[in-house]
């Protein structure tokens, strides 16, 4: 890990302009959705809603299926992230540190799942799942989400493990630590910030994934995004969508707060840059 010393701050015109443009593009739509969620009447050409209110929140929060979906989505994301970590982290370590036949082909095969249109793949998987009685079950959805997470959870941790200085591991061997102790006390903590970034991406990605959850989960399993789609399809009321959307921000927001605390500054960049 290189030492990072912040350069003295000075005013950077291009930076400010870029930040401004980015906040307009990123924040403005969020703001509009946020305002819609607390709006009861907002007709053209008014810039601000005529009537604010929590009516749609009440209606939404009083529905059992919303709470079920939220709970389901959180459980699903947690289970998938955990399973993905258990499966992928040892594999990532193997890819990063060991030489075995077929290593490169196998490594790139994780990319293949993302290199082709996913819907076709999903349909094929759905056909197989149908025979296995996995359609419409929790574990069927968990399995399909697991496939989606493989790339993040292999590629990013591989970069993290490769970035760990071999000399640090050797120094730990030198003072008396066996290979497992070295992994636990040196390699894993060194790679931890980047792996945390991968876990976060996996959690959030699973939470928001729609296609697979809808195709495999319907009709029994309805995650938050799937529920949102059915809301919008049934009755085109903007506020329902907005309320659900704002609710969906919650996990991202918590995850990002967590990320700021645990990961800090440049770990995301490190995760992708290796």
């Amino acid at each position, binding site marked *: 890990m290189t030492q990072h010393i912040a350069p003295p701050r000075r005013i950077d015109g291009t930076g400010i302009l870029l930040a401004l443009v980015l906040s307009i593009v990123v924040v403005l739509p969020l703001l509009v959705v946020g305002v819609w969620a607390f709006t009861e009447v907002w007709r053209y050409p008014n810039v601000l809603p005529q009537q604010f209110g929590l009516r749609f929140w009440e209606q939404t929060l009083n529905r059992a299926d919303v709470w079920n979906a939220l709970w389901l989505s959180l459980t699903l994301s947690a289970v998938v992230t955990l399973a993905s970590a258990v499966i992928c982290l040892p594999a990532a370590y193997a890819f990063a540190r060991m030489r075995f036949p077929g290593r490169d082909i196998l490594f790139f095969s994780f990319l293949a799942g993302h290199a082709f249109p996913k819907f076709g793949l999903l349909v094929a998987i759905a056909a197989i799942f149908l025979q296995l009685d996995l359609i419409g079950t929790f574990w069927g959805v968990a399995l399909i989400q697991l496939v989606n997470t493989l790339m993040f959870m292999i590629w990013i941790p591989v970069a993290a493990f490769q970035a760990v*200085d071999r000399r640090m591991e*050797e*120094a730990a061997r*030198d*003072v008396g*630590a*066996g290979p497992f*102790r070295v992994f636990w006390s040196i390699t894993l903590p060194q790679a*931890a910030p980047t792996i945390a970034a991968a876990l976060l991406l996996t959690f959030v990605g699973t939470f928001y994934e729609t296609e697979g959850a809808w195709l495999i989960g319907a009709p029994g399993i309805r995650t938050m995004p799937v529920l949102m789609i059915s809301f919008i399809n049934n009755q085109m009321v903007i506020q329902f969508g907005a309320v659900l959307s704002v609710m969906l921000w919650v996990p991202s927001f918590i995850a990002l707060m967590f990320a700021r605390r645990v990961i800090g500054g440049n770990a995301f960049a490190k995760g992708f840059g290796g």
Partner: protein
Amino acid sequence: MSKLSIRAVSKVFGAGTTAVDSVSLDVADGELVCLLGPSGSGKSTLLRMVGGFEQPSSGTIAIDDQDVTRLPPEQRPTGMVFQSHALWSHMNVFNNLAFGLKLRKRPAAEIRDRVEGVLELVGLKGYDRRMTNELSGGQQQRVALARSLILEPKILLLDEPFASLDQHLRERLREEVRDIQLRLKTTTLFVTHGQDEALSMADRIVVMQNGRTEQADRPEIIYRDPQTPFVAGFIGTMNFVEGRVENGRFVHPDLSVVMPVSDGPVTLAVRPEALDLISTEDGAAVVHRVTDFGTHGLVDLHLSDGTRLKSLVRSPEPFSSGHAVDLRPRAFAAFRDNVKLYRSSDAA
């Protein structure tokens, strides 16, 4: 107290490259031995084999007569200081130093005492709560040294520990390390490619090239009586003149000295400080450049066959470029077929 014994150790890497070629070396109790050589000479590989990070292809390594050749690093009584310090950046200084003791399940009070003691030894008292990236390069290397010393290794291994530091710091640290080593009487193997480092620190220098030992001797002998042309050229500055010996005399168009060896081709080796110059009108060598260093002068010379020589003179005044001089080697050695043939008796 401990001694290290390396017996005919070789290391052949996968592609068939021989990094270390049947090296034998004994390091006596409390001795500091420098492995000196250019990069790729196998010195680091040899050190890593002693530390257990590489397996020898053949040969044995013993510490205090106990064979450790097949032991992994964690079971060897060796302590290594790496070139890049290799401190664990997610731990503070205290935890870096305490890690090895915690693995050995030492009581907390003892760990605290020993960490404090070793920090004082390396001059970093009170730094135990710092994170390693808050330390300067020299302090980091001191912590790395302390991390090895705290476990009281039988053999201390140093792999170019000062290579990443600036010249000034390097000189200070090597004095400190030598002082500590002398105080603790730790048997030490030290890898470097800097001859200054080797000459100033070592009890004995092992000069390596292409995986082989060229010469192992005390520093002053390595300098004064090199056994191979490589050692002669690698340590300090050496002038080489190719010529022939005929009837007990070294013959060269510009230079001739008495040399009681058998007839044949010979390489004459003269240190710049042992090559006297005499200004004469009909001298054979031509002064190319004169550099005045204040305390002494350095004269670059060209011979008629294109050979370039350097001569260290007390005063550069009598010489200027273009002038002819006569060469009078005061002390010299002669090599033939890569071995020393002769050394003049009055070698300085």
